[in-house]
């Protein structure tokens, strides 16, 4: 993987300039077949006539005709030699019109030879051939990288969970890949063939026949030509100057034949080789000659290649500066604390840098490095921290691919190890790689500084809590508040605070804020609102129940016992201001199709689900399962949900209350309606779940039971991105 990536990168540096040139000229040339088809009228299919009809018409009107040929684009040209001059005309089989052959316009020829040989003759042809080979290599390794990074082939077609330049880059690559793979493979074949490095694709002449030498019969009478329809026709060569010892040579889609002019019969035939047929397909795919729409499709696909390159460059340029800058990193030989980082997207480095900064400020010598760069020894170190993200199916991220190798070589055992895992609970192997490191460290007999800690979706609260605990162990006070790249916080003004649930001990508020100004980030339901509570640097995240289109920001907040931010928020009165910012959360969002959605939530978890309902406008049939404590006390959005049911925007509403007459939970309702749920899922429904971890686990277990008879499972739905969770 590592080597495939660096190879991919180096090959792309080498191929970028000629590659772009080939792509741009290729896209321009992709219009050529259409241009020819339009200008010669061959957009309409050739008339249903025989070669005998065409050839006799031309022979009558064009003195000295020696050759008739049909181009891949179905243009019929006739070459003649008459009165000591050569010439060519174009014949229209539909009308019988003969017109002078249009001069090939300079632009196409120039483009073509630029594309083929960069105006550099054989050297240029070699360069373009190698470039095509590089493009082919990049397409294959590119697919491989995407697949292994995202953990499956599905990644190639499922919507990517990214935004901005990364999304542009990824989408452009996906669009360009098809065209690039096909044109580069065919380009390599054509290049090899032009250097005669592949067997000849031409059908050789059949063995020369013995001819009767008798008087030639009329062309219209020749049976071989009568029985060949124009659609099969390629080329007809006349006996030069009426030479009676020469036959007609007739090339068709299937081979080359000699025709005796005296009998009009085929006297010898050489079929086209399989390789010849194959090469024609290759040529068709590469040039679109003969099927202008193939040319256009390829051109469109490859249009995306320069976009991919440009967005790739933009990605590199907009990459944030190293999170380690400004921190005094100690050399490996002197460090007391060593932080080893396994990261792919870079956020884990920000957490590591925060720990390094705070430890350094406390006067300790700290070294930070990628796991891949782990030394065989850190002679002065007391503590070894592994900060590890997880990718693929519980696999190591990019900067930790060498973990097994480097870890096995490590010499000291008298060092305390702490493993902090970064992951996302919605993946089946939550923090799989950190768990692996922890198990390996235990197996190797290392002392553990603390138990393995897992951080879900870069939770700053969980990280701060871990830091406090580590600080205690090290005898220092550690306040960890990393600054993840976010938009700067803005002041929001509260419009409305709907307070519910107080009577049943589950205080929860629906908070609606004003969108401050036009420049405020665009957001959708399911994105997160990061709120900085007074007296803390660590933001808390709340799932948005509205989108920019709704014209307000809305969240549902459950007041936590002793909770800093939630207590503050649920007590706000209209007009109060808070500091907040948007954090995109594109992986939690319904697919843009008309498949049904099953929305499942409890308590404040209804927030984003309500947002999805508002956004779908009835396009997606929606089934909502929601659980609260008491219908009388904490039924969030009661009125709006009833209206949605009446208008049909919500197909079905199932509520469960745990403190009412017949106590029930959401999973109770799912079980009661298991056949309906199973049916919806078999029809392609997607499931979106929001709320607490426990509820999510119970729901997953129940759904697994419901799905088992159908031979599917939650894990499978997750891998199809049809089971999305936002749990906290």
């Amino acid at each position, binding site marked *: 993987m590592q080597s495939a990536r660096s190879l991919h990168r180096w090959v792309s540096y080498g191929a970028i300039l000629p590659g772009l040139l080939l792509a741009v000229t290729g896209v321009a040339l992709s219009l050529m077949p259409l241009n020819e088809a339009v200008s010669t009228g061959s957009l309409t299919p050739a008339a249903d006539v025989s070669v005998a009809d065409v050839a006799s018409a031309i022979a009558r009107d064009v003195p000295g005709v020696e050759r008739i040929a049909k181009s891949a684009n179905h243009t019929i040209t006739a070459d003649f030699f008459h009165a000591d001059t050569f010439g060519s005309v174009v014949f229209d089989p539909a009308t019988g019109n003969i017109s002078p052959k249009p001069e090939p316009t300079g632009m196409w020829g120039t483009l073509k030879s630029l594309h083929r040989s960069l105006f550099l003759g054989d050297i240029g042809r070699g360069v373009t051939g190698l470039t095509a080979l590089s493009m082919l290599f990049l397409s294959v390794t590119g697919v491989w990288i995407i697949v292994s990074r995202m953990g499956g082939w599905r990644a190639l077609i499922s919507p990517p969970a990214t935004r901005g330049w990364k999304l542009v880059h990824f989408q452009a690559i996906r669009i360009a890949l098809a065209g690039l793979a096909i044109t580069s493979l065919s380009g390599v074949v054509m290049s090899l063939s032009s250097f005669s490095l592949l067997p000849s694709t031409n059908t050789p*002449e059949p063995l*020369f026949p013995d001819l009767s030498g008798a008087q030639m019969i009329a062309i219209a009478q020749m049976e071989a030509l009568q029985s060949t329809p124009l659609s099969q026709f390629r080329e007809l060569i006349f006996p030069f*100057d009426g030479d009676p010892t020469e036959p007609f040579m007739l090339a068709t889609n299937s081979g080359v034949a000699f025709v005796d002019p005296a009998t009009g019969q085929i006297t010898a035939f050489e079929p086209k080789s399989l390789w010849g047929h194959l090469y024609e397909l290759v040529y068709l795919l590469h040039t679109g000659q003969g099927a202008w729409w193939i040319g256009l499709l390829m051109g469109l696909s490859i249009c995306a290649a320069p976009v991919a390159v440009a967005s790739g460059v933009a990605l590199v340029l907009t990459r944030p500066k190293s999170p380690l800058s400004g921190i005094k990193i100690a050399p490996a030989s002197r460090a007391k604390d060593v932080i080893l980082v396994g990261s792919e997207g870079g956020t884990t480095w920000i957490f590591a840098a925060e720990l390094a900064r705070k430890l350094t400020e406390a006067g300790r010598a700290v070294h930070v490095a990628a796991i891949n760069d782990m030394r065989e020894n850190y002679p002065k170190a007391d503590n070894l921290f592994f900060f590890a993200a997880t990718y693929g199916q519980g696999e190591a991220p990019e900067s930790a691919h060498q973990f097994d190798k480097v870890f096995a070589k490590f010499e000291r055992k008298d060092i305390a190890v702490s493993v902090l895992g970064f992951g996302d609970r919605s993946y089946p192997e939550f923090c799989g790689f950190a768990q692996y490191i922890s198990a390996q460290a235990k197996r190797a007999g290392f002392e553990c500084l603390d138990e393995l800690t897992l951080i879900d979706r870069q939770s700053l609260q969980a990280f701060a809590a871990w830091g406090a605990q580590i600080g205690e162990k090290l005898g220092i006070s550690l306040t960890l508040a990393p600054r993840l790249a976010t938009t700067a916080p803005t002041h929001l003004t509260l419009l409305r605070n709907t307070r519910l649930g107080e009577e049943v001990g589950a205080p929860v508020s629906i908070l609606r804020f004003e969108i401050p100004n036009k420049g405020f980030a665009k957001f959708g339901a399911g994105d997160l609102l990061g709120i900085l509570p007074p007296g803390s640097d660590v933001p808390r995240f709340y799932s948005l129940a509205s989108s920019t289109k709704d014209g307000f920001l809305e969240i549902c907040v459950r007041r936590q016992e002793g909770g800093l931010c939630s207590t503050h928020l649920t007590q706000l009165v209209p007009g109060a201001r808070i500091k907040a910012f948007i954090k995109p959360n594109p992986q939690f969002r319904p697919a843009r199709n008309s498949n049904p959605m099953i929305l499942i939530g409890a308590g404040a978890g209804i927030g984003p689900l309500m947002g999805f309902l508002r956004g779908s406008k009835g396009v997606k049939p929606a089934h909502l399962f929601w659980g609260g404590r008491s219908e009388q006390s904490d039924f969030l959005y009661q009125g709006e949900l009833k209206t949605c049911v009446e208008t049909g925007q919500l197909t079905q509403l199932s509520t469960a209350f745990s403190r009412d007459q017949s106590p029930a939970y959401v999973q109770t309702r799912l079980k009661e309606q298991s056949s309906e749920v199973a049916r919806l899922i078999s029809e392609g429904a997607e499931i979106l779940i929001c709320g607490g971890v426990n509820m999510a686990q119970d729901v997953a277990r129940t759904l697994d039971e419901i799905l088992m008879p159908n031979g599917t499972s939650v894990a499978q739905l997750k891998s199809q991105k049809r089971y999305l969770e936002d749990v906290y």
Partner: protein
Amino acid sequence: MKPLTKTSLVAGALALAMAVPAQAKTLTVITSLGAVPGPRAYVAIYVTDPKGKVYDTIHVAGREAKYHQHLRGWVRGARKSRTKPHSVTGASAGSGKVLKAQFEIADNLIAAGYQVRVDTAVENFADVPKAAVLTLGKDTSVRGRGIVRKVEVH
């Protein structure tokens, strides 16, 4: 232009096989081209028996082997005689070019009606096999067709 010289190994081998007395002549063939349309022309100058079987290749103008198949009479005749159409190549030829080449041939083959033939091919125009056919011992100069104006043998 420097005359091209060619000693035919095939000639020697055939002569031996047929046990023909090795009485031979060295002849010069001069091929004059007229106007060549468009790009440069490929030209094959070769010796055949009266039926067109290639006996010897004197000169081929045009170096890219993949275009040689368009010199149809030559390729065809070589197939008949099962000799490889080994090419004695030079640059492809433009308008007004005069190609001079020497070859050696046994007297008895001249008497048997062996011929010097010229094939031409020009990109985008018809190939002309037998653009000129000169029967040795009978003609010393013939008119050609297409781009070949004239062929002479001394």
